[in-house]
């Protein structure tokens, strides 16, 4: 479209024909108040607060809404003259006669100097701007909201005033509502759902977690409206750098590296199968990880410890060794639980008035300063019971007057069976190897132990190395360990890797296998047998070849070669025979 000349408040400006007056004004820094305008939606012009006076400069004038009035050549706009001020003011007073005070209305009223609106102040929290209805319709494409009834009884409604199956719970309506009239309501009155908490910002376009590296957001395609209804696309609209690409696909990056450090970490043990603890079945039975999220000042509860009903707990039981030191789950000790359990006790005592009871098998406070911390927490009035919790049940089984849960255990120090009433139970779940550790280890030719952790080359002499040269271990993928240990091991692994990478040449062991090409029959039996993937097939020459740098001189190939083409250096048949003869002589 061609450019036209428009005059706004006396300032002439060239803009494309058909641009809306509001956009032109905002471009010039002229403020026109709006209530129902949202830049990502078609203008609706229902609130009329953006009314301005349009004219042709020759005496003809008319009030128009700036948000949807397209400009034409010679248009003269007065955004702030007496008539516009009066019309806005009266309309605002009319709106206030219906609606309750809210920030957006109060601000606007202040700017007009309206103290007491002449038709009184209403009680409706909705100002009928229609943003929610339109965002659901135009942006989200779910069409779950509409206006019900008409005239003064007009209101925002779902079809038949019931919970709509069309609603995809995206929350777009809640986020655009300028007055807080729309809000989320928990269907079962659960204010806090511990199992669904996340440390990530609660949005479909999000950081994986706040300290993520690289710290860039990604789109959660399961929850993004764009991927669900094909609508929205607001993020692409607002991104000033055009970074949003809805067609982007996951890609596999292939890189050649000289060393690999395995730092794949651990999984948390899922306590659901241990039904005696009631996790997933009873309310307010939470895992240590969920509890830790609540403790995070930037977390979902802003650092508050809360029960499902949104109230702070009055008493908490912390159960040690859930899944650890247990023949039904993992026999090993997870090493970190005792200490973080005491940290929890300390935090709970600091943040709430709750009584804390710890149930332990025995306390393993082995690190530097650990024992001192344990003693300090004991001094803070935390109850400790030596005895593993047998089960957690709802208190209604046996009315005790307080708390909703009962923890049953045997107190082995006094030799008695006990029931502790609490309203929250924290399960200190075991650390376990990742379920894909074994499969992943196989790719790198490193092996896992019986409990799934990666096995180091030697527990004392090579604790971060593996049986594959150039692959090192760091952190909890090698075994349960706490943060200081993980950091130490990580440093060691990095040093090992650097040592390898800094070398200009690699010193190899003289002992390795080689293939006599003339003798090799090309059967390729050795290719698959080599545990270090050192043997490759040379298609052009039709022979197998050994990469000496990878060979560990295990001799497997030499033993298996049907043609006797593979020679294990330093362990050739002649040498072995000679050794035997030497020993026998």
């Amino acid at each position: 479209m061609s450019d036209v000349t428009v005059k706004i408040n006396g300032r002439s400006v060239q803009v494309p024909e058909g641009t809306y007056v509001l956009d032109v004004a905002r471009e010039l820094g002229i403020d026109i108040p709006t209530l129902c305008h949202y830049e990502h939606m078609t203008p609706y012009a229902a609130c009329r607060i953006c009314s301005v006076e349009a004219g042709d400069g020759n005496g003809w004038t008319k009030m128009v809404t700036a948000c949807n009035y397209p400009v034409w050549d010679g248009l003269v706009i007065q955004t702030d003259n007496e008539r516009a001020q009066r019309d806005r003011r009266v309309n605002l007073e009319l709106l206030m006669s219906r609606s309750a005070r809210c920030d957006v209305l109060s601000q606007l009223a202040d700017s007009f100097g309206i103290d007491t609106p002449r038709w009184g102040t209403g009680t409706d929290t909705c100002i009928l701007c229609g943003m929610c209805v339109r965002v659901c319709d135009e942006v989200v494409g779910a069409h779950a909201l509409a206006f019900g009834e008409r005239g003064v009884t007009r209101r925002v409604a779902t079809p038949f005033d019931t919970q709509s199956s069309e609603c995809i719970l995206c929350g777009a309506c809640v986020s655009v509502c300028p007055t807080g009239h729309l809000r989320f309501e928990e269907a079962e009155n659960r204010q806090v759902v511990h199992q669904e908490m996340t440390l990530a910002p609660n949005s479909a376009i999000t950081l994986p977690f706040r300290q993520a590296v690289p710290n860039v957001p990604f789109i959660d395609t399961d929850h993004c409206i764009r991927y669900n209804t094909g609508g929205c696309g607001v993020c692409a609209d607002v991104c000033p750098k055009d970074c949003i690409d809805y067609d982007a696909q996951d890609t596999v990056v292939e890189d050649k590296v000289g060393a690999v450090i395995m730092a794949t970490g651990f999984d948390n043990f899922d306590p659901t199968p241990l039904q005696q603890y009631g996790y997933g079945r009873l309310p307010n039975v939470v895992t240590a990880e969920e509890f830790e999220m609540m403790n995070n000042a930037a977390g979902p509860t802003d650092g508050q410890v809360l029960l499902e009903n949104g109230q702070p707990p009055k008493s908490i039981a912390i159960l040690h060794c859930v899944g650890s030191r247990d023949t039904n789950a993992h026999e090993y000790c997870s090493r970190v639980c005792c200490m973080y359990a005491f940290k929890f006790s300390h935090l709970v005592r600091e943040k709430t008035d709750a009584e804390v009871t710890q149930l332990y098998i025995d306390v393993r406070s082995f690190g530097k300063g650990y024992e001192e911390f344990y003693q300090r927490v004991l001094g803070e009035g935390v109850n400790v019971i030596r005895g593993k919790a047998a089960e957690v049940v709802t208190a209604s089984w046996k009315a005790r007057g307080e708390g909703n849960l009962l923890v049953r255990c045997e107190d082995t120090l006094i030799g008695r069976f006990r029931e502790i009433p609490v309203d929250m139970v924290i399960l200190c779940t075991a650390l376990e190897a990742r379920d894909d550790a074994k499969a992943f280890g196989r790719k790198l030719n490193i092996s896992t132990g019986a409990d799934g952790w990666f096995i180091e080359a030697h527990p004392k002499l090579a604790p971060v190395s593996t049986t594959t040269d150039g692959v090192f271990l760091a952190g909890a993928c090698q075994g349960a360990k706490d943060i200081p240990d993980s950091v130490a091991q990580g440093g060691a692994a990095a040093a090992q890797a650097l040592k390898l990478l800094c070398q200009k040449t690699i010193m190899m062991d003289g002992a390795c296998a080689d293939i006599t090409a003339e003798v090799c029959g090309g059967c390729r039996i050795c290719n698959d047998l080599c545990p270090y993937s050192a043997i490759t097939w040379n298609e052009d020459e039709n022979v197998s070849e050994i990469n000496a740098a990878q060979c560990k001189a295990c001799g497997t190939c030499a033993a298996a070669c049907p043609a006797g083409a593979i020679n294990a250096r330093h362990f050739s048949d002649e040498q072995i025979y000679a050794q035997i003869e030497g020993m026998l002589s």
Partner: protein
Amino acid sequence: MKTGKITSLETLLDVRTNLIQHRELGRPVVMVCAGTGCMACGCQDVAAEMEQAVAQAGLADTVEIKQTGCQGPCERGPLVVIQPEGIFYQKVGPADVKQIVEQTLQKNHLVDRLLYKDADTGQPVVKVQDIPFFGKQMRLISADIARIDPTSLNDYLAIGGYEALGQVLSRWSPTEVIHEIKRSGLRGRGGGGFPTGRKWDTCRRAEGEVKYVICNADEGDPGAFMDRSLLEGNPHSVIEGMIIGAYAVGAMQGYVYVRNEYPLAFKNLGIAIKQARQRGLLGENILGSGFDFSLDYSRGGGAFVCGESTALMASLEGKVGEPRAKYIHTVDQGLWNRPSCLNNVETWANVPLIVNMGADAYAAIGTETSKGTKIFALSGKVRNTGLVEVPMGITLREILYDIGGGVSGNKTFKAVQTGGPSGGTLIVEKGEGGAESTLLDLPVDFDELTRAGSMMGSGGMIVMDEDSCMVDVAKYFLSFLQEESCGKCLPCREGLRQMLETITGFTKGLGSVADLVQLEELAEVMIDTCLCQLGGAAPNPILSTMRYFRAEYEAHIQDQHCPAGVCKALVSHAINSSCGGCHVCAKVCPTDSIAGQAKALHSIDQETCVQCGACYQVCPNGSIERVKRGRGAGVQVRAAEAWTRKTEKHRVANA
């Protein structure tokens, strides 16, 4: 031939000649009005009885019985007109039918008691054309309603129907049609009065392959039934107009949006469209011209605001009927964002008329800026209510006195309301200070009415007498509009509520002069900022009544007095000394608040009286007075004293 497709103008003319030839000249035709008004009075029974009586009299082959659309004088229904003589019988009941058949059809005698009696002389009037109600009218569009059976295409063809279409398709180019309409000076009859030719021209020039023509039959104004009568009584004229319009603007699809509350119009339109399709007047290659046009019809959902063009189109699209800003006109982006030419029923019905009589002849009727005729629905306190068609520029006096026959009862005219809820109320009898109002000689056309503070609207015309309170009238229209406001835009939704609250306060004696000033400001803001004309014109009832009847407002506010005695909170009913003691009032009083011995002065218990006014309506002596609230007791005391004096005088005289 009779039901075959009509494929060219020549065939059309042949069909018509054929139809006329097959009708014996002079053969009696009994026209029973089956318009909505007469239907409510039981015309269906009359028609059924007529069929039976004619058959019994052995006249089934010689006498034709037709049920027509609304013939106009609804006040006098059920109507029976016997053609070709044009004998007009009014208020015919099933019991009268036998007499009509025996006397008029068989013996050519008149049934005197069913004839129209002149209001002044009392002399019977035989022929329909001699009745003064019709005398001053110029029935160009509505006359055919009385001549045809709306469900018969043949009837329409026989009176020259679709000939205009044939002429246009075979001889005129689309631009010639638009030129002709422009020359005729036709303006939209829906309310705005926009020049139709210009609208068509813009639509024709609008970019887009697909265009639509739409007929607005969502006539929602209280008291208006012009479009209803046209659609019910002569749907083919509307269809013909739409086909011509579609040809002119280049549309191949049309829609008629019929008000939900008009079942008969919907039915008759459906029949007409089906017939037109069957005979090839709708569909492909109409009359061999190569022009294709199909027409569908849709029913509204019962919202007044859907008469607004953008709301109507939203409703047609299946969305909620809410208006949108018309900064981009519907002729450019209307239905489904395509160029759409929307006109109302009466406008479309004018189109074949203009083609037939020629733009010049049409333009000769009316005033400088408003051409042709306009149909009004005359209702309220006049002797002759009903549908009237008059040339533009006729004075209010002619409509009210010559056609309407003056005010009914022994009352005096007070005001006339035109233009529906968005229109205004005009003083017709006395101006402020008793001066004779010049508005009675106001020429009725688009611009004069607007200048006087009202509007043409779609043609409702409600006459009010001295018993109407203007504050109450404004309140009525405001509450109608508030009820019908869609609620989308703020000033209409909330402004109407506040206006209504303020004015309701007036009718209860609560209010101040400051409220009047505030109302005026609110009205200005609403006119400035409402999204559509439902809100933009909504202050008209208040502004026009305040302009002409400010004293009445002031009486309500300052004296807590309703001069017309309508506002219940401000009046008391009281009995004055002229009471003859007939006890009729006591019998109708729903709360048993009236007491009195036979032939003695009655009195009203003000404690229990609900001011319903039933006694006021029935009192034969006019002894019930509506007085300012709180004065009733005084009147009664004075009446009792007067009564005592009167009876004392009688006693003395008799003694």
